[in-house]
């Protein structure tokens, strides 16, 4: 099947939804595609529409008014036939074709069946978001240890609390909504371990003062956590998990300023579930092969480099939301809208939004980016985190490569980045293509530079059957 439009948007999270809505309002024909079963991405993750009564999750959400407004705009345009919405469609490759792009997806709405679909348009927005950044620790591959985003996805998408007694750890404000959501669903949150020191924020008073909404949100979480008697420990990290076939005990320790566990502070907490997250890494699979330039996002990761109109340096290719650096849903919505305005301008479409509204969006983007930078500085990866690893701690979950093997490849061999470690040890060669171990391997061997995922990623593995279904003209480009 082939779908064509003026503008293909990959990712129906806050950024992609806002971009599609703005472009449609401006008169374009839009194809919006997402691998999920519902609009909303990670922030507004919902069960599929027909399941909302059976799986109520509205109480776990923020900013639902904006979500509903975007959904209403998109539905109205779907009725006029100008929006083609493709849910449960995974994009696995995007290539240049003439003046535009051919975007290859598989329809998995009747999984395990896969039906190939090609989307064509002169303009392409990649709004594929980010995923949880992980640092390994002994026992992190025990069942019952999840990413905090994974815990949140199970809650918001399926109404399921993954455990009864949970310990959360890592760094960043995202720990708080997850703790609050788990508590709201009846789980006992035994501890939230934040590696950073709260005083780190005092060095960045201006971004905080200019973003009162973030304060208010933080205060609401603090209230919820206090009500549920959830202890939040700062300068503390999960340094180990133990159990037989499932996590049973979590080891936590206080950290000194560089992240080294302080001797004598280790405590054991009984828990059946652990959630960990060290910020997020942008999902660049579709952008990197298209040749888009990356830039240092300021939090130890690389992200798509864009101009102030969200244009990448590849003509016709735009990026918005967390592919351009992690900064939250409000930033993503504004960037999405700005990207669509650029597309309208570049395609010489008629319906541009008025200048004042656009200026307000640009100002919001600038403000949120400053806040995101401050957040990254206040919640860094602890430089000494690798002190938690033993030589037999798995770093690569897929290929089961240990910290000892990675260190040896670095110390005795020529490996100076995660790509070379991959060749020497197979770390990052497995199913996830290094998405889970990449940031950690990178920190172990090349801590001074920001992390970017490997060059040749396929965004999703597809079957030979799915490939065989493609017509000749498109396989030429893959």
């Amino acid at each position, binding site marked *: 099947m082939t779908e064509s439009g003026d503008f293909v948007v990959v990712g129906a999270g806050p950024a992609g939804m806002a971009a599609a809505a703005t472009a449609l309002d401006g008169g374009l024909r839009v194809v919006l595609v997402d691998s999920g079963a519902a609009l909303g991405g990670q922030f507004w993750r919902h069960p599929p529409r027909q399941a909302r009564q059976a799986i109520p999750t509205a109480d776990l959400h923020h900013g639902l008014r904006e979500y509903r407004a975007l959904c209403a705009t998109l539905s109205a345009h779907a009725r006029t036939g100008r929006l083609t919405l493709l849910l449960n469609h995974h994009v696995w490759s995007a290539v240049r074709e003439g003046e535009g792009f051919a975007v290859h997806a598989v329809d998995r709405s009747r999984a395990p069946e896969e039906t190939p679909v090609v989307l064509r348009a002169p303009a392409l927005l990649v709004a594929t978001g980010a995923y949880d950044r992980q640092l390994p620790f002994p026992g992190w591959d025990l069942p019952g240890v999840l*990413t905090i985003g994974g815990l949140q996805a199970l809650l918001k998408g399926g*109404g399921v609390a993954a455990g009864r007694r949970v310990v959360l750890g890592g760094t960043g404000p995202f720990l708080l909504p997850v703790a609050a959501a788990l508590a709201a669903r009846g789980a006992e949150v035994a501890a939230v371990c934040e590696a950073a020191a709260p005083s780190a924020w005092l060095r960045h008073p201006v971004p905080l003062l200019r973003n009162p909404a973030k304060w208010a949100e933080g205060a609401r979480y603090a209230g919820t956590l206090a009500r549920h008697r959830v202890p939040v420990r700062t300068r503390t990290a999960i340094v180990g998990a133990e159990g037989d076939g499932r996590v049973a005990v979590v080891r936590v320790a206080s950290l000194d300023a560089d992240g080294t566990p302080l001797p004598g502070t280790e405590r054991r907490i009984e828990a059946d579930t652990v959630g960990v997250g060290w910020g997020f890494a942008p999902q660049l699979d579709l952008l990197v092969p298209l040749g888009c330039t990356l830039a240092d996002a300021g939090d130890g990761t690389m992200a798509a480099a864009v101009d102030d109109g969200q244009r990448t340096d590849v003509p016709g290719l735009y990026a918005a939301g967390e592919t351009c650096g992690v900064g939250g849903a409000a930033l993503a919505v504004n960037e999405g809208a700005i990207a669509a305005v650029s597309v309208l301008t570049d395609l010489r479409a008629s319906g541009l939004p008025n200048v004042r509204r656009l200026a307000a969006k640009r100002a919001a983007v600038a403000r949120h980016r400053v806040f995101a930078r401050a957040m990254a500085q206040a919640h860094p990866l602890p430089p000494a985190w690798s002190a938690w690893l033993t030589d037999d701690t798995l770093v690569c979950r897929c290929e*089961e490569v240990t910290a000892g093997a990675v260190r040896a490849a670095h110390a005795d061999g020529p490996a100076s980045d995660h790509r070379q470690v991959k060749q020497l040890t197979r770390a990052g060669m497995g*199913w996830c293509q290094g998405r889970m171990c990449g940031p950690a391997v990178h920190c172990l061997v090349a801590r001074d530079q920001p992390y970017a995922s490997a060059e040749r990623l396929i965004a999703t*593995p597809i079957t030979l059957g799915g490939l065989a279904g493609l017509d000749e003209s498109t396989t030429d480009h893959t």
Partner: protein
Amino acid sequence: MSEFTVDGELLPFVPGQTLAAALVASGRVAWRVTRLGQRPRGVFCGIGVCFDCLVTIDGQGGQRACLVQARTGMAITTGEGDDD
């Protein structure tokens, strides 16, 4: 009642849940083992990036349980071989 089978055993789910959500709701945390160390694995990232949650659906291996919506009558098999 909406049900699928896991290794022949009936498992209820709420329509709209993913296979992973239904498995986790039933108390399961692991449903396959790794190729080399035979380590147990279940859901980790929950959004389709880590591939820990692989299952075989109606004979087709390598499927991510966290992405696929459960459907009545699906036959899920787990264990070794899901990541071949």
